[in-house]
């Protein structure tokens, strides 16, 4: 935009300037207006304008003033126009960015940021984003600010960096232009309804699959017809560490627990007991000794009494001791009953007859014979894990340290025996079901063998069509690897090996894609040759989320859940056959999978909430990732940067 000024305009401006000049001369007798004291310079003499990069920190390449500023650094293309960047321009831009921009992101190289800035400025210029002179007058900090000391401080900062007021203006123009250019993109994010629908469809596809299954259960019946002899079983037992571990004798212990629950006492007995008074001091002392435990046992319907609202009269306030007193008295009165039994047991062990003692004193007796930790947790819920560990850490023939209290009951225990975990003997393994393990293992292995044989048929059928092409691919990539080694001048064996390995991986990818193109037909051929039946399942929506399939009784259901939740279905296209054998230990089957059909549900099945959710997410993602469209790497590539 250009400004046209007529002679009359110039004259008016001159008059305005004269008015200002006349107005600034103080009238006689008046004081001069107060001026702010001059602020000290921003930095002391000798201190650099900008902190140099920390040594060993973000790796800024040292950028120094060029000897010949007109020397060409590089060029790039914008809309068919070649833009030349001289060393001088590059250096001045570097100084400008160092003074004005915040410290770059950790690891970002300053040189890249300078080049990024230069390229963005040209793009912004191309889009007409450069501000006019009139706009710059509003943006230029030297023109905008009316505070002379601020201007002076700013200019000192620039001058220390070797910059001029023209540079200040130039930076203001370029920063504004780049900001506007980026704003054009940040504010033109448009997400189509089709995009939202596609995003939703990806998680709601309906799949129909075909599969061939090889299940252990199909082979087990045949195995059972010809049971193994003892020597075979023994060999299986000795060779198979997994089975031995599975049949391992776990850690166990044997103990007697005696328990007393006061709440199970008959009412008459409780009433008789309560007739005995417990002195206040005794109850208070007991409360103090067991305060933490007792406070956790305040009845829930009375807890609110301990948090009286504001303004409650003093006589209505209750203390925890008052709330708990009935329980305290009961404990004091009843404890001796189990305490006596405990003393007896401690004296009599290991010959103590727990059952008789329990009957005599009216207590509950629980005998634990060769129990594991899990068994104890089930038999005595609430104290199971803790109790097991306590018992385990006691000597055989000893009892608990005293009468314990938990969850409203008193109890103690005495340990009779404990056994550490060990591998079973062959005899013990036989008793635990070694034969069944044999059938389980071998039937699964047989199923796997058959499944692999089927996969081999498919692979053979593919290879008959692709072996020549695969060979050609291998040769091509080997050649490329050697060419790269030569071009880069690698001499170290490690470098050569790494390059060859990289190209080998690329070749493997291409061969895999080639083979997958023929896999569908090869699968069909293998079906016909082997006589195996392909089953179908679907249409279904892919399941997500964990399901404990081992706990499902129905084996068919287990299989269906496995197949429906297989992650790779999402990436497959109709006609694809998965190139890996799928093995499911829960259903004990192996599968070869083919995707028959994949259909996105109609748009009408998408709810308003889902539509809104996906659309908003995409808007945010596009806005977020849009910022990376102007990264140095992308600009360099798109604008075809060339070093001079």
């Amino acid at each position: 935009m250009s400004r046209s000024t007529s002679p009359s305009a110039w004259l008016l401006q001159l008059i305005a300037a004269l008015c200002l000049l006349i107005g600034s001369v103080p009238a006689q007798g008046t004081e001069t207006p107060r001026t702010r004291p001059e602020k000290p310079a921003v930095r002391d003499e000798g201190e650099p304008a900008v902190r140099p990069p920390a040594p060993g920190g973000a790796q800024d390449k040292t950028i120094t003033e060029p000897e010949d500023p007109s020397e060409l650094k590089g060029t790039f293309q914008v809309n068919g126009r070649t833009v030349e960047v001289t060393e001088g321009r590059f250096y001045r831009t570097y100084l400008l960015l160092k003074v004005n921009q915040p410290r770059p992101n950790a690891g970002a190289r300053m040189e890249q940021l300078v080049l990024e800035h230069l390229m963005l400025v040209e793009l912004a210029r191309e889009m007409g984003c450069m501000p006019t002179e009139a706009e710059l007058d509003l943006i230029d900090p030297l023109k905008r600010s009316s505070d002379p000391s601020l201007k002076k401080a700013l200019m000192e900062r620039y001058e220390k960096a070797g910059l001029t007021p023209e540079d200040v203006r130039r930076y203001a123009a370029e920063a504004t232009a780049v900001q506007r250019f980026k704003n054009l993109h940040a504010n033109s994010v448009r997400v189509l309804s089709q995009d939202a629908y596609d995003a939703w469809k990806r998680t709601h596809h309906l799949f129909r699959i075909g599969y061939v299954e090889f299940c252990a259960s199909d082979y087990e019946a045949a195995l059972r017809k010809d049971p193994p002899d003892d020597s075979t079983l023994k060999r299986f037992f000795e060779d198979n560490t997994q089975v031995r571990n599975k049949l391992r004798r776990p850690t166990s212990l044997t103990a007697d627990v005696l328990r007393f629950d006061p709440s199970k006492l008959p009412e008459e007995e409780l009433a008789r007991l309560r007739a005995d008074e417990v002195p206040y001091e005794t109850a208070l002392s007991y409360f103090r000794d067991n305060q933490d435990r007792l406070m956790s046992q305040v009845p829930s319907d009375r807890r609110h009494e301990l948090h009286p609202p504001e303004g409650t009269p003093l006589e209505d306030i209750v203390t925890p001791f008052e709330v708990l007193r009935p329980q305290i008295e009961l404990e004091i009165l009843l404890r001796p009953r189990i305490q006596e039994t405990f003393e007896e047991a401690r004296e009599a062990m290991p010959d103590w007859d727990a059952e008789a003692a329990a009957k005599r004193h009216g207590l509950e007796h629980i005998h634990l014979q060769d129990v594991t930790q899990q068994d104890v947790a089930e038999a005595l819920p609430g104290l199971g894990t803790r109790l097991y560990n306590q018992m385990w850490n006691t000597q055989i023939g000893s009892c608990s340290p005293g009468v314990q209290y938990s969850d409203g009951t008193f109890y103690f225990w005495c340990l009779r025996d404990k056994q550490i975990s060990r591998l079973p003997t062959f005899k013990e393994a036989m008793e635990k079901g070694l034969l069944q393990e044999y059938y389980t293992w071998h039937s699964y292995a047989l199923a796997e063998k058959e499944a692999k044989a089927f996969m081999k048929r498919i692979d053979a059928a593919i290879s008959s069509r692709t072996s020549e092409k695969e060979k050609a691919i291998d040769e091509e990539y080997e050649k490329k690897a050697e060419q790269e080694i030569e071009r880069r001048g690698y001499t170290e064996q490690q470098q050569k090996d790494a390059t060859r390995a990289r190209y080998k991986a690329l070749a493997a990818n291409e061969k895999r894609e080639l083979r997958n193109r023929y896999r569908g037909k090869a699968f069909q051929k293998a079906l016909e040759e082997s006589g195996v039946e392909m089953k179908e399942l679907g249409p279904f929506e892919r399941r997500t989320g964990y399901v404990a399939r081992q706990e499902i009784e129905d084996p068919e259901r287990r299989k269906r859940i496995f197949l429906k939740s297989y992650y790779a279905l999402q990436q497959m296209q109709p006609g694809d056959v998965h190139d890996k054998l799928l093995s499911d230990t829960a259903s004990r089957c192996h599968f070869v999978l083919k995707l028959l059909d994949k259909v996105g549900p109609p748009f009408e099945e998408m709810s308003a909430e889902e539509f809104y959710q996906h659309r908003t997410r995409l808007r945010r993602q596009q806005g977020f990732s849009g910022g990376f469209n102007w990264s140095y790497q992308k600009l360099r590539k798109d604008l075809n940067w060339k070093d001079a």
Partner: protein
Amino acid sequence: MIRAALLAALILAAATPAGAQSDAKLFQALDRALPHKAPTMGPRLTQQQGADWKAAVEAIGSVAARSSGTAVEPYALFYLGNALFNTDQIDEALAVFKDLQERFPEHPLNSVILPGTEKSMVAGAVADCAAEIAFRSKHEIKLLPEPELDDSLKAVLHTSEGDVTLKFFENAAPKHRENFLKLAREGFYDRTAVFRIQPDVSVYMGCPLTKERQINQWGRGDPGYTLEHEISRVSHEAGVVTALQANRRRRSHGSQFQILLTDRPNLDFLQTPFAKVVDGLDVMRRVSVMQTNQYRQPVEKVYINGVSIEKTGGGTKKEGRDG
């Protein structure tokens, strides 16, 4: 001095061509109206907040009207078209973009094809509008309603630090609203305490275990059920009351909620907002900066003494429990 300066300013204003100065101011006004401001230096990793496109249409539209005949006009129209698109006014957006194409064919927005793209920015926008119109001609787009606060009902949390007044969204999260009202009427929230705070971010409430002494259990209580998520257009901004997420995916906690003190769009679709604080946010802000213990609970306990529900319209009628 002042009179002279004023006179000078008036004369200068008369001398300066109006176009140049007004263009500058219009560009500034346009920049201010934009909902998103891109970072100037590098691709900074910040999540884009939700934009208020409705407000943007008005703001940008105003600038566009004022910028007629200036260099600002094409840019204003481009932004306006995008804002209209994002407020589902696709026909209007297309009209704006086409107008831009016809009246400014040489403008860079129409003539420049940026690297990595196949069309100019306006051509791309026109194509998008056309695609969207074609899609909508085949499929009915069900849009969620714009959330509005129900002025006929409010809930007041009487906390030990002061009262906080909430209004509920009329057309968003009705089940969460009813659940909150039910629990409030039953006295569920009475004598519960704030169980977690994040300074100037949020305040967490609604756990029944805060009535007990064991502070390490606070935040683990619930009424025994969870609620299904209810997605709406309410975004998680400051003042919004949102149900906490339950342990199960896509479910809300049955009673626990947090009051936000800052915008948190990352919670959108994870939690269900159902109300907004209309009075007393400063109380919550004060609570959020209290001294905390190792569980991030205020050392000095902040209780909800009660929740009162008030119906307005036809006289104010208080119901439920008072503090």
